[in-house]
């Protein structure tokens, strides 16, 4: 058995609601502090910097009309400085506002996911629980329909997605034609997807025998593990297609790098790395994100190691013993740290995007398109991983023994996905940020 719903107490839904409220409070607090609080201060600074810039431009115009050459040069320098200060103030404002808004939106999604799914799991009939607990120890497991249900939901959602976006824009009063058929298909797809995820979650909480492959090439191996690796093959191909597109386009561009290497003479394309790699301030978010993913890969390994360790004991270090007092809480807290690091990754990524967009590096160029699609697809993978991690935290929290040596393989299989995301970043970071 890999855990049992029988262990899930009746207060599950209450716990889910409380955690949701905490998540919403964190989101609200971050929005209030960063977007409203610091954001307002930073906006005032930006206004002041912009005012200084306008004055500098006016002074330069005056100097050009009536001043000496020295006065003109001084005015030009002042204009340049004011322009730099204006950009810095704008980017600083964007940093705080984007961070606050991103945290709020993420916390709302986390709260909805945690709250609704937690509640969904708490209303399952008791007899079903009993049946599983007593009846299936030697019962053959017939697999689950939930993954294909979820996949079908995603398919319908994506088919209707372009029309869904246009309809949302239309509902917001923008000049777009509503496409209610596609909108309905997307909404139905989303509903099917949520039911699939909820059902999958519920089945996993109940626990089940690990299915073993009975034929080559994976004979004797856990089917879920083999399935995860097959899934990762397909993911590798997705990212390989991004890379080949990028490299194909990149070899045709005359970039700053190519000019410095003597390959061509005049820069015709600015890449994201041209804007990011020269200053520590612009490179920092990407670099911090790289470290965050590596640390999160290590914390998920620690969660698995702790879950599997039957002789686990609290650390002799007082702080560590407080943070990780029992095996169950240690696993849960390692997962929470992983979630926090992954969430930080998303926040920093969007802050970085906001800076790039403000500097004119938008998706409507070839370089912008491949950069945002590749890094966006990676960010989406991180975010989906975070939602799965929420479920794992929930499971680690509500099952009587949490994750242990019997059901710890769930962390291992999810860990494979999370390490893959880290691995993809190992390639994306140098290719898109450093090269």
């Amino acid at each position, binding site marked *: 058995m890999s855990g049992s719903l029988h262990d899930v107490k009746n207060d599950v839904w209450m716990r889910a609601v409380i955690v949701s409220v905490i998540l919403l409070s964190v989101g609200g607090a971050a929005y209030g502090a960063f977007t409203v609080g610091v954001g307002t201060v930073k906006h005032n600074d930006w206004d002041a910097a912009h005012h200084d810039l306008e004055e500098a431009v006016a002074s330069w115009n005056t100097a050009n009309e009536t001043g000496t050459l020295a006065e003109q040069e001084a005015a030009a320098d002042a204009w340049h400085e004011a322009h730099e200060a204006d950009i810095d103030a704008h980017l600083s404002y964007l940093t705080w506002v984007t961070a606050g808004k991103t945290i709020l939106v993420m916390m709302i999604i986390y709260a909805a996911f945690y709250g609704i799914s937690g509640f969904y799991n708490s209303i399952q009939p008791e007899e079903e629980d009993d049946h599983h607990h007593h009846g299936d120890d030697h019962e053959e497991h017939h697999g689950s329909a939930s993954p294909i249900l979820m996949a079908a939901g995603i398919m319908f959602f994506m088919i209707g997605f372009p029309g869904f976006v246009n309809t949302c824009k239309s509902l917001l009063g923008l000049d777009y034609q509503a496409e209610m058929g596609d909108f309905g298909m997307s909404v139905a797809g989303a509903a099917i997807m949520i039911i699939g995820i909820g059902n999958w979650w519920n089945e996993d909480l109940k626990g089940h025998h690990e299915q073993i492959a009975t034929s080559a090439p994976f004979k004797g191996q856990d089917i879920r593990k083999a399935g995860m690796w097959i899934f*990762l*093959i397909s993911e*590798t191909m997705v990212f*390989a297609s991004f890379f080949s597109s990028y490299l194909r386009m990149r070899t045709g561009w005359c970039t700053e790098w190519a000019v410095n290497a003597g390959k061509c003479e005049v820069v015709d394309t600015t890449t994201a790395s041209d804007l990011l790699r020269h200053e520590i301030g612009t490179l920092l978010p990407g670099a911090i994100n790289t470290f965050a993913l590596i640390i999160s890969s290590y914390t998920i390994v*620690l969660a*698995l190691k702790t879950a599997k360790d039957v002789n686990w004991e609290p650390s002799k270090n007082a702080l560590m013993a407080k943070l990780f007092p029992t095996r169950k809480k240690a696993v849960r807290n390692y997962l929470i740290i992983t979630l926090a690091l992954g969430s930080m990754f998303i926040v920093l990524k969007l802050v970085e995007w906001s800076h790039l967009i403000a500097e004119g590096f938008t998706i409507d160029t070839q370089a912008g398109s491949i950069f945002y699609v590749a890094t966006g697809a990676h960010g989406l993978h991180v975010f989906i991983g975070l939602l799965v991690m929420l479920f794992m935290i929930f499971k680690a929290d509500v099952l009587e023994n949490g994750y242990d040596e019997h059901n710890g393989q769930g962390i291992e299989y999810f860990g*494979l996905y999370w390490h893959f995301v880290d691995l993809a970043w190992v390639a994306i970071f*140098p290719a898109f940020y*450093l090269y």
Partner: protein
Amino acid sequence: MGEHKYTGPIAGIFQKMADIIGKDVYYVNFLILMFFTLFEVAAVFFETIPGTDIEITRTAVWGVLIVVGIIKGYGIAAFFMHLKGDPFIYTRTALFPVIFAALMLWGIGLSNPAGIDQLPDWCTPNWDYSYVTE
């Protein structure tokens, strides 16, 4: 988890380092990943080797990025994803897409402008490009 002793030319080095500092291989791997990431960022950020006038050339940066990428990829796949220690079928599975990735890269060689006359012969099918180059 953790008790497994890694052997082999590279994994053995990781294991030896772990034994020396009295930690497990995951910890050593984590430290190595952190160090090489720092190294990677520094190689791009600095134009000369700090404290010297020696210029860090583009070729050197390329070399660093590729070598560090391979080391980090190995560390994550071998130890964090347990390919080193799991049955070999998983390594074969993980390497399967490499065939397609290689084909894609070859496709890049065939289809980019430099493919006509600037890439090595082995990258191109040696068609007659005279109508383009003349």
